[in-house]
């Protein structure tokens, strides 16, 4: 009797472990912020068409297509933690509060984030 139980447990245990690992991997994938295209400089750059009469100084000879699809989380589930003393630009739009940690803006590929809350369109920049 005991040998049957041991055999059954021996067969089930690897399957159980495999299932736990698969679920863990799926959960990690589910929680990982979607970074598709966010830092893809090459995909977003375009020639800068402005002539000498354009104001300011050319720092790089390309312009970047606007950044739109970015991940957001609530404070308790941030994949990229933000310290209490770190600076944010925060706004309330259509009743929804959104914070943009300064350390996540810049690059220059991430100097502007195009956002939407309700029907309102806005952009955070640094």
């Amino acid at each position, binding site marked *: 009797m005991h040998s049957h139980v041991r055999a059954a447990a021996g067969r089930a245990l690897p399957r159980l472990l495999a299932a736990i690992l698969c679920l863990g991997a799926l959960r990690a994938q589910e929680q990982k*912020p979607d970074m598709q295209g966010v830092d893809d400089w090459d995909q977003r750059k375009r020639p800068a068409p402005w002539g000498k009469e354009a104001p300011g100084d050319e720092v790089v000879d390309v312009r*970047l297509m606007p950044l739109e699809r970015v*991940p957001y989380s609530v404070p308790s589930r941030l994949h990229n933690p933000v310290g209490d003393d770190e600076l944010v630009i925060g706004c309330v739009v259509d009743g*929804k509060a959104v914070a943009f940690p300064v350390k*996540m803006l810049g690059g220059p*590929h991430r100097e*502007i984030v195009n956002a939407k809350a309700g029907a309102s369109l806005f952009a955070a920049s640094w």
Partner: protein
Amino acid sequence: MYARSVKGKAIRLGVSGRLLDFNLVMWDPETDSLWSQMTGKALYGPAKKKGLALDVMPSLFVSFSMWKALHPNTDVLDLPPVRSKGWHFTTKTLVKGKNRYGDALGLAVESGGDAVAVSYEAMRGQGAVQPPMKHLAPVFVWIPKYSSAVVYDARIEGKPLHFAMKEGLLVDASSGRKFDPLTGKEVGKPQGAVLARLNAMPAVLDFWKDAHPSGRVVR
């Protein structure tokens, strides 16, 4: 923080690759125009020919702890940092009152062609700073608990109060009325008044002055 619609049409803002007065110049693919990050005004292209400007969205530039205290259910941008760890993206920047290049920083308020900026150093030193303006009565307030600053309209029912910071509260000199510097709510009165928050833009004071020649700077 700007609204990204112009005359009812949505635009998207991107990095132009240019700087004006050491400040970001934005562009939009919808009108192919250049925009000033500092002023929101169109600088070049079809939008400039129409004299357009982006509407400013009210925002706060504060510590994450202060933002969470005001808005516990906030959403937060969740991207890996692009900046290496350092004081220049923490409240130490505001306590020092300077950026990593040594330029003095402050908050600026504009209204009806009138503009004033107050340095973080002045706010931190005085607690509350009330520079005169034509159409507003701003009070720039340093909040030690969060090492951050906020600007309120000092008027209640049209009458300006004259504030000083005492024991962590904003206190009106003549009436003694007290207000919470975090929320603007009157203390000790459940149905009391609430100070309205004014929109203030963080600024490098020298560059802000270049872009606002008639504006005043309190250092």
